[in-house]
Structures are given as structure tokens and as C-alpha cells.
């Protein structure tokens, strides 16, 4: 599957717009992504190792449900195909 980044996130993936990971489910794909781009870990995960809600994830254009942010089992149960894409929208506001 493909992870897609833009904006402020690009510097944590060496300015690669897309990162390809071959894994059968979303949890393993996420682990593969963090192994490939370790600078992402503190940015993507909070201190409880949950995905930060600041990064909105779109799986093939559909906003992903809240459980995929905090439940590793739900991520494990989510099978992914090579043609699937997860888009990270990181909309960081200013004051």
C-alpha cells in the first residue's frame, strides 16, 4: 500500500510524497512505515503510542474511523491491498 504525505509532514519522510509498504494489514504497514522513516514516530504517535488525531487519515479517499487511531487490534484486522492509499492530512492551525 501507499502512504501519502504533504506540507509539514514531508520533512519527516525525506520529502518523499509517497512511501510504498508491502504488508497484509494496516498495523503492519504502519510499523513498516515507521521503520522506513523513524523520524515520523514522535510526530505520528503520541506518548501513549496512539496515532495523533491531528493527522487525519483518508483510506482511498474516505476518512478513517476513530478506532483506527487508538486500537492496534482494529488496525490489525484491517486488510490492505497494494492498490490502497492512506493520505495523511496534517492541518496544523496557527494562533
Amino acid at each position: 500500500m501507499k502512504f501519502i504525505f504533504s506540507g509539514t509532514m514531508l520533512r519527516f519522510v525525506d520529502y518523499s510524497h509517497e512511501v510504498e509498504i508491502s504488508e497484509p494489514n494496516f498495523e503492519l504497514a504502519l510499523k513498516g512505515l515507521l521503520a522506513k522513516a523513524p523520524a515520523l514516530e514522535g510526530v505520528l504517535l503520541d506518548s501513549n503510542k496512539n496515532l495523533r488525531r491531528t493527522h487525519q487519515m483518508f483510506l482511498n479517499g474516505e476518512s478513517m474511523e476513530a478506532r483506527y487511531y487508538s486500537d492496534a487490534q482494529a488496525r490489525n484486522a484491517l486488510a490492505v491491498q497494494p492498490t490502497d492509499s492512506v493520505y495523511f492530512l496534517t492541518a496544523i492551525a496557527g494562533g
Partner: protein
Amino acid sequence: MQAPAITQLHERSTPEEVRRYVASELEAFFATQINPEATERDEACEAVPRGAFEHAAQVGLLNYLMPKDVGGMGGSRRTFGLLLEHIGYFCNDMAFPSMLAMYADVPNVIYRSRRPSLLEAYVHPMALGKKLGTFAYTDYGDAFDFQTRVVRKEDRYVLNGTKCLQTGGALADVFVTYARDEADDMKVLLVDRSDPGVSTRPVKTLGLRSAGLTQLKLEDVTLAEERLLSGPDGLAEAQTFLNSRRMFVVCPFVGAMKRIIELCVVHLDTVIREGRPLTQAQTVQAHVGNMAARQLTSEAILHDALDRIGRGDINQLFDPIISAAKLIITENALELGERAIRLTGWRGYSKELPFERFYRAFMAALTGQTAQDVLEIQLGVVTMAHVGFNQQRGLR
């Protein structure tokens, strides 16, 4: 004791009901306490007087968003937005609604900690207008690169850095402060003006000069553990707060736009060119028509966004409708302000008329509550993601 008139408003009050409340209960206050010195305050970069916010607390405006169990009105964010809109019409100093929106919202961030000591020391006095709080977010660098750092030392937090710009900082007793910790996570901490190592200095800007804008310096500021307000994902908490506040910055603009049009038409009617008032010239009528279209469109966009907020029909972290509304209302306000100056010539450009001051105030939203260009990028990214995926799947 008689309940303040604001208690007649509720979560489904119509815009007209809110307008009538502001006209009957607040217009005289603005006319006597805020408007007469607006130009002089702006020139002197002097903050709106603290007494104005004590009055706002007495009438239930400052504490409108606060829960009832700490002395607030428990009012809805939708209705508060409508209040700000109509205050923008009656109040000639745009700094007042800007500061009010900040001071009214910050207590809720502290309230959510549920710590009795913080409720007693800060939230209860804030409900009475005895203490005021602002938030210190803007930093040198983006949220992943904040220069303000917090380090844990035994059971204390030590803060160092400079936060660039705070609305209402000149009057604020406390600052809800955002800093990066050792793990590069974002932490939210409550800083008291009286804490050793805290200092502020005024920041001079193009507009909103009476909004008490400050820069906050933190030098080895040592805080007890109870001052930590954030949980495990401080970044999401900060973004939720900022997203929910985004509309408030433009609510007063919509009322002010209406006021500008009225003042402009009244003035143009007194200017005689070629033997007739300027209001009879078709080019002037077209300008005024364009201004009216921008104001009415902004009003419609604002009310729709506020209704969505009222229904809870928004994305808490980044809402495209709220973001688009802030973006477009700001652009409309700027265009309308510029047209008012074009129409009124040297008077509009000078301080004889208030248009240049309104125009400068609108400019604050170019960079405030997320810069316009950043919002455009974010909305563009969301749109392109949806279009791209829909095309992949053959959807129309």
C-alpha cells in the same frame, strides 16, 4: 438578584433575537464606554480598559461560554458567535470583540483540567471578570518546531522561550502556553503573570492596536505539576481548541461590514459632485451593491457555519466549512473595507472616518487564527485528495 437579560438567549435564538439583545442591552455601553476613545486608543496603542471586561462579566457576556457550576452562563458557541457578530456592528473598536472572544474561551481550557485548586484560583475569578486569560501559541517555527521548550525536573516543569504574539496579553493574568517537551510532544501549561521569570512586552502591529497585543518571555519559569493542562496528545488538544476558535475571529467582521456600508452611504449622500449627491452616481451605486453582496454573502456563510457548530456537525480538528468561512469572510471584509476607502477618498484614508481603522483590523485575520495562505493550502490538499480518489474509482 435579577438574572441578566442575556439569559433570555438560548442555543436556538435567531440572529434577529440576538441583534435585539445587543441593541437593547449593550449599545449604550459601547456608545459611552468604548466608542468615544476608539481612535485615540488606536493611535496610542493602548489596550481597551479592563473595566470594559468587568462590565462584560456583569452582563453575562464574558462568562457566557463557561459552565454554570463555575459561575458561567453555559451558553452555546453558536449563540456566542452571533453575539460577536452584532457587537461588531455596535462597537467601533474591533479590539473589544477580539479580546472578549479570547477571554471568554480560555477559562474552558483550564476548566477541563477539573483541578479544584485551578478552578478556585483562576476559573471562578474569571467568571467574575476579576482575572483574565489568553493563550500563548504562536512561536518561532511551526508546531513541530516550536522553540519554546518545557523540561521535566523532578515534580516540576521548567519553561524557556518566547511566545511571539498574544491577543489581550496586556491585561491577562494567565497565559495558556504551548511548548515542546523532551520527546518533541506538545504540552499545554498554565503560566501566571506573577510566576518568577515571566515578562511581557507590547507588540506594535498594523491593526487591532488596542487589543493589548504582547510578546511573552519565559526564563526558567518553574511550574508545579498541577499547571500541566494537556494529556498524552497535546498537539490534538491544541488543534481542537484552535479549530473551535477560528470562527470567532471573523464573527465581528460581519457586523462591522454592515456598519461600514451604512456609514459609507450616509457620508456619500452628503458629498455633492456635479450638482448631485454621490449616491446618485451609478458607479457609486455599483460599488455599494458589490459591498452589500459581500456583506450578505458573509452573513449567510457565517450563520451556516455557526449553525453547524451548534449542531456539532463539524470536524473537531480541521473543519473545511469553518476554515472556508474564515477564509472567505476575511477576503470579503478586506475588499469591502478597501472599497469604502476608494469611495470616500481622502476622508476614508484619514482618521476623519473610521474606515482605515476597520480595514487595518480586518488585516489581522490575514495572519491570525491560521494564515489565509495556510488555509488555502489545507483546503486545496483536502479537495485534491477527494478529487483524485474519486477519479480513480470512476465516481462523479
